């Protein structure tokens, strides 16, 4: 079975919701683990990598926590496009997509548990949840980790904790992160202040695909940087607290924009709607940035009953691999053809969205105090 057949279609995948999903798109907890007595993947010869692969793949595949229905594959057997698809779904890292023989992936049916074998560490396992559900994600991946510890021996030192290829992951090996949609803070030009404040708390703010990537579509990823000297539960709670504050700031920024500059807000949302529903050629970057304002419009009630799952679907389907794999003839599209096909998809899908209703925004302003 190919990964495209296994994955839940974009339109369905986006129906999944969770607490605070107006702003928090997804939560993730990742653990890094290594085997004892096998060099770390970045420094091991092919034979060593294959040894780790042969040990870990069967141990992971049969975990009861993953359920019986799983997708697993060696990275050399996945076409580049399929790997890109997994990156766009945030199931594997861009680094892992570049891997070949000796590296692998195991994914469960719900697409909320994904294990990368021989990424930078022998194991990078992650639990994903829609909305703000860091605790749930931690509990899920903690269980996977404990079950694996009954099957394989992880490199661990009493003093340093779990040993990782890069000392930045040492100790707990945990990376707790959430994907946030922050158009309000961007429009209010407060985003840099927030990023700086969050950085001061020892948390990192990154773009859509993690380290070294742009914040396309006003999507930011917040994660912990320190992994040693603080228990997992405390790290999760600390980030959770910070995220709740960012959510509050984003909501406040949206409210104050609505009160002070409704025309600016409507202009952004209206233009986004106009371009997305009328363009005949559009790049993924432009599309994603505009879909962000469409989603903001949906959040603010400007598009009537339009669900945000639709805008999330457009966001996902605008990305290159999703677009290419949706092409009926499956022929390899050049970048110009992709822009044409993307515009067509967006025109068709936005046709069901009603025209923006300014009253939803302006009317609200006239009321005394809506909340």
């Amino acid at each position, binding site marked *: 079975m190919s990964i495209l057949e296994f994955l839940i279609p974009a339109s369905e995948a986006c129906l999944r919701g969770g607490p605070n999903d107006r702003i928090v798109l997804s939560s993730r907890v990742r653990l890094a683990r*290594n085997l*004892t*007595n*096998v*060099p*770390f993947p*970045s*420094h*091991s010869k092919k034979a060593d990598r294959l040894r780790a692969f042969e040990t870990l793949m069967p141990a992971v595949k049969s975990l009861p926590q993953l359920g019986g229905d799983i997708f697993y594959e060696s990275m050399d057997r996945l076409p580049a496009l399929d790997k890109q698809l997994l990156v766009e779904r945030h199931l594997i890292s861009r680094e892992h997509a570049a891997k070949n023989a000796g590296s692998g992936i195991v994914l469960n049916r719900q697409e909320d548990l994904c294990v990368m074998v021989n990424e*930078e560490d022998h194991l990078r396992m992650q639990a994903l949840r829609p909305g703000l559900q860091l605790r749930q994600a931690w509990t899920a991946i*903690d269980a996977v*980790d*404990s079950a694996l*510890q*009954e099957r394989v*021996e*992880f*490199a*661990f*030192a*009493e*003093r*340093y*904790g*779990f*040993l990782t*290829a*890069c*000392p*930045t992951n*040492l*100790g*707990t090996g*945990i990376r707790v992160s959430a994907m946030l949609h922050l158009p309000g803070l961007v429009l209010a030009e407060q985003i*840099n202040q927030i990023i*700086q404040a969050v950085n001061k708390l*020892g948390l990192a703010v990154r773009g859509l695909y993690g380290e070294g990537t742009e914040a396309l579509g006003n999507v930011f990823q917040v994660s912990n*940087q*320190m*992994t*040693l*000297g*603080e*228990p*997992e539960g405390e790290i999760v709670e600390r980030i959770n607290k910070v995220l709740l504050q960012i959510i509050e700031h984003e909501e406040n920024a949206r409210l104050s924009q609505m009160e002070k500059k409704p025309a600016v807000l409507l202009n952004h949302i209206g233009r986004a709607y106009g371009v997305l529903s009328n363009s005949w050629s559009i790049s993924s970057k432009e599309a994603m940035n505009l879909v962000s304002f469409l989603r903001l419009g949906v959040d603010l009630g400007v598009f009537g009953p339009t669900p945000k799952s639709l805008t999330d679907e457009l966001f996902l389907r605008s990305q290159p691999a999703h677009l290419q794999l949706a092409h009926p003839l499956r022929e390899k599209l050049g970048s110009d053809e992709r822009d044409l096909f993307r515009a067509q998809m967006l025109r068709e899908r936005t046709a069901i969205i009603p025209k923006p209703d300014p009253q939803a925004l302006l009317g609200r302003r006239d009321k005394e105090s809506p909340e």
Partner: protein
Amino acid sequence: MVCQFCKSKEATVHVTEIADNKVKKVDACAVCAKEKNYNDPAAFAIADHLLGLGAAQKMEEASEAVGALSCDQCGYTQADFKKSGRLGCARCYDIFSEGLDSVLKTMHKDTRHRGKVPVSVKRAASGVQRLQRLNRDLQKAVAQEDFETAARLRDEIKAFKASE
């Protein structure tokens, strides 16, 4: 362009650092650059990028502290560590431990692990502790000439060792 440090020689090393959103530009001649540790900007940039600002300097110190060590298990050298900011295998953490603490201090909350411990390690640790406690109690009992308790403890230790 003239070197900003000695203000005489031609500046041939140009480094741009961004820290706390402030851009700091350094233009130095080869001699001053070496003196001020700007001789290998690429290595610094990589380490800083990977480990956070300030880590590069610590790594430099750390790799000097460990000298020309290499890992007996995977062959990783201090030069590899300096270059990549990563270690080669679990054993490397023993080999390069000297100096590692100062690196860890710059990037983590503490230099000692708190948090999850593998079940196997926990079991082993609790076993060792229990044995230590029993032995201590036994010695105390013998010293106090409480032979009844001593006999019971002796049997308990025997049984515990057999069950291990």
